[in-house]
């Protein structure tokens, strides 16, 4: 799976949790999931569960904690696959 493909898929997973839809229109690797997209921090659990299902990977709590930006999430997926 190409990096851009993973990126699109990660953004798709984040989309329902985004509380700042305008930020989604200019989303990039540096976009902060909590700061820019205003995802409720409690919902990161749901994002991780969906990423595990979507990419067939297992993400540890420590790995999940290290994710800040959309790019972090994409890198994590590429590393685990």
């Amino acid at each position, binding site marked *: 799976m190409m990096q851009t493909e993973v990126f699109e898929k990660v953004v798709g997973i984040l989309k*329902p*949790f*985004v*509380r700042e839809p305008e930020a989604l229109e200019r989303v990039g690797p540096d976009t902060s999931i909590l700061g820019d997209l205003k995802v409720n921090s*409690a*919902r990161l*659990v*749901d994002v991780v*569960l969906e990423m595990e299902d979507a990419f067939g990977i297992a993400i540890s709590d420590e790995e999940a904690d290290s994710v800040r930006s959309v790019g972090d999430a994409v890198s994590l997926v590429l590393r685990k696959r």
Partner: protein
Amino acid sequence: MSARGDERREVQAGRAAWARPAAKRETPARVVVTGLGVIAPNAHGADAFAAALRGMKSGIRRHERLAELGFACQVGGVPEGVEALRTRYLREEELLAMNPNMVYAAIAAIDAWKHAGLAQPGPEDEPDWGAGAILGTGIGGIDTIAEQLVPRVDAGKVSRLGSTMVERIMSSGNSARVAGLLALGNQVSTNSSACTTGTEAVVQAFLRIRSGLAARMLAGGSEGHSPYIWAGFDGMRVLARGKNDRPEEASRPMSATASGFVPGSGAGVLLLESLESARRRGARILAEVIGGYVNCGGHRGGGSMTAPNPTGVRRCIRGAVEMAGIHPSRIGAINGHLTATFADPHEVASWAAALDLPPSRMPWIHSTKSLIGHALGAAGGIECVASVLELAGGFVHGSANCEDLHPALAPFAERIPHRTIDAPDLDVVAKASFGFGDVNGCAIFRRFHEE
């Protein structure tokens, strides 16, 4: 906007009436109804619900799923068109953490807020410290517990529950969600007193504003619909039987052939407000709450977990009427609890005893449940909304399906309307709810008079 700004400055300065300790108030605040929100089995929205009540539109339908599961009662009241409404009122991110009970509460609360002429605040607005919510539920998120929590936990998949489970199953989920949607900064709480819940919420909110502790309160109740919510009642043999093929005839309060209640669902929410606050912002006043009382029969004197102590019922009604400071003969209509169980004749006898009126001089006696079923924790909220709509619209809706009146109610036959009555002089409506636990609640609404 400016009214809220004024209030904020007043509360910061300790000047707002509702910010002062209750003890410092010389006289209790008058409390008025300025907004109504309702999502009921027969209508959504105050205007549509008023029309449905006037037209005696039934919201009871047959539900095949209940038949498949072997329910004796296969009919129920479920609000229609909710799938389309959900996304008009709520964002996807919010809906992910809500069950149907919470969705109903949110729709009705937002409607009541806007009906009162208040603007829905944005994410950056300051909380409205004078506004709160008491929104009850009888059963809460048991459908989510049954469908999602228990199967996953039993399968050892706790790590797969996700983050939204607690929000969807906590008892206070409905009021908590509404607090965020409307930036409420006063008391936000969910009460639960079985079928008294919605009316109790209205009484509690009324008392809070009356004592000066809040300027505005959303008050009422919500209940979802699910075989898991309704099964226990069917198992008790208290749900209606024998009318599964004629759903609109199944809910038969005060009838000789009443065989139990028809389960309902939805939400009813009133925006109660101090007269002072309503006047300051030039709000339209729909009615005044002039009395309210809640109590319990203590499971004595014939009362039990599932039956009311008539002395408790009568004391509750009298307590509300005494606070209202009116002679009982001023009450124009009783919107009863009247569920279509054995208790209906006892309830009417208690009303007559509490009001100390002969049958011929009793107010009109009717049951909104005859049209929408018994919405459990939402019933009191929806029926308080109905009572205010009747006052504001000058009508008493017909009580359906009791042409074959219960013989014990024969003395009251002339006071039980089978068809909707135009009542332009209707001035006071009494609404009571009674619930498992031997608990009672009564609210008295009056058309608003300046005096």
